[in-house]
């Protein structure tokens, strides 16, 4: 599935003294089966942007297209199943007495049979490495475990596009690595992932493409190396280090991920 934003504007509190134009004509496409990183400073419009992908927020002007069709003409509940949105700190919405009940809530509400609901819950928890938590109370889990359960609640609806808003905030480095692994495996299984993050280092590790927002406008869209090497001062640590060395060592190339950067730099010291 392909989701396009076409010249989308969004205004908070329109017509009041507190009016804020959060998006100023944003055009962006989420391609099938890609990991799209949305980056930009605090208040640049990242969360506002992604809430338009399933029309949780409605544009003041501009359009949202799903496989070329105006999203406003689609049934909202079906749209929101196909484009699953995981909010910042989604564990705040956990509510059921057990993890499996919590994850089963949405599929059950959609009227799926009990056998299928059980199967979806099992598969989704397994995918997130949380199968062993099924019978536990979500409130007795650690922060990283709660986060995975909350994401499972959205994934159990089998979305075609999964939107994650700051999914690693508050997670320890090991839990962060696990979550990035989940993002990669979702892409392998055909799901697109849109990941909002203020952490450029983690975006560098998983994104196929990056969209950089500033002041509610798209400042750049492209591959991680295109976007980051054009602005080394606001790039991940890997790109910042290599950019400082490229004048002296033109053969370094444009590595972005940690592994490839380390390999390129090792070459310098061993040459």
């Amino acid at each position, binding site marked *: 599935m392909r989701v396009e934003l076409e010249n989308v504007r969004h205004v908070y*509190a329109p017509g009041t003294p507190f009016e804020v134009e959060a998006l100023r004509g944003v055009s962006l496409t989420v391609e099938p089966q890609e990991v799209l990183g949305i980056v930009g400073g*605090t208040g*640049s419009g990242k969360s506002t942007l992604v809430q338009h992908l399933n029309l949780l927020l409605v544009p003041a002007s501009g359009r949202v297209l799903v496989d070329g069709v105006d999203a406003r003409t689609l049934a909202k509940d079906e749209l929101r199943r196909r484009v699953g949105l995981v909010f910042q*700190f989604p564990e705040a919405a956990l509510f059921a007495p057990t993890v499996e009940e919590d994850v089963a809530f949405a599929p059950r509400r959609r009227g799926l049979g009990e056998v299928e609901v059980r199967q979806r819950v099992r598969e989704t928890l397994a995918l997130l490495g949380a199968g062993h938590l099924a019978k536990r109370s979500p409130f007795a889990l650690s922060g990283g475990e709660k986060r995975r359960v909350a994401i499972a609640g959205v994934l159990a609806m089998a979305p075609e596009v999964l939107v994650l808003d700051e999914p690693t905030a508050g997670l320890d480095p090991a839990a962060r690595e696990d979550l990035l692994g989940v993002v990669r495996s979702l892409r392998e299984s055909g799901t697109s992932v849109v990941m909002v993050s*203020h952490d450029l280092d983690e975006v560098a590790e998983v994104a196929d493409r990056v969209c950089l927002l500033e002041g509610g406008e798209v400042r750049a869209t492209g591959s991680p190396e295109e976007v980051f090497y054009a602005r080394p001062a606001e790039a991940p640590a890997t790109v910042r*280090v290599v950019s400082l060395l490229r004048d002296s060592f033109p053969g370094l190339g444009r590595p972005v991920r940690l592994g490839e950067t380390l390999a390129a730099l090792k070459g310098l*010291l061993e040459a």
Partner: protein
Amino acid sequence: MKNLGDEGTRRGGSPIVSCENLTYSYPGSSREALADVTFELRSGEYVGVVGPNGGGKSTLVRLLNGLLDADSGSVRVGGLDPATEPYLVRLHVGMLFQNPESGLVAPFVEDDVAFGLENLGLRREEMRERVREAIQAVGLEGYERREPHTLSGGEKQRVALAGLLALEPEVLLLDEPTSMLDAAGRREILGRLEELRGTRTVLHVSHHLEELLDADRVLVLNAGRLVADVSPEHLLSDTDLLEENHLVLPSTLRLAAGLGLAPAKLRTPEDLAEAIKIGSEVR
């Protein structure tokens, strides 16, 4: 437990926070969230707390300001027990939650920042002055009349920090105060905390080791136990300690370590690039 012993310099004056054999389990859980934890914070110290999710970091912070009541052992903050004197303790101890939404209550940013002050019985002019300074300190000038629910995660986090700074507490308990901030915002907030250095006692919980490189000490909590109380330099160079506690070096330090360069001295991409240049010339 790994301990500083005599190796580190102990900053600060008399103990302002002390915990002895502190133990706590959540209701209905058989596992101890915190087990037998003993340490002290001296007045003016800046101490980091790291460790895996579920290690007991947030539990510790909640015990220190009386949100939770210890099963056994003791906590004293300025000589008071937070469990029996929570209101007195909270006059001296300010806390910032991990999720900034947890602390925002008022319709406008400036009211939110003023909220805690309203309970202190300050003169109106002094309150205004403190609110203005706190908003300035976190870089939110111009946001005074914004509604908190229209702010981004990172902006909310700044509002919550401003509310805390306005109270001028002696002890700051910060539970991942920068989890929603981009690199520039993080540097700004850390810079602000650095300015308070020595005048406040800070306990700073973080998953980002790069935020704690200048801390006086770092406590490592894992599965409820205090497994290390060491200098940041020690922590960065102790690969076993890092690995056992699921700690990962920041990218710049990981690159340095991967290249066989001493990570503790190479904090920024600029430092590392310089070291690589020198290293390649030697060869």
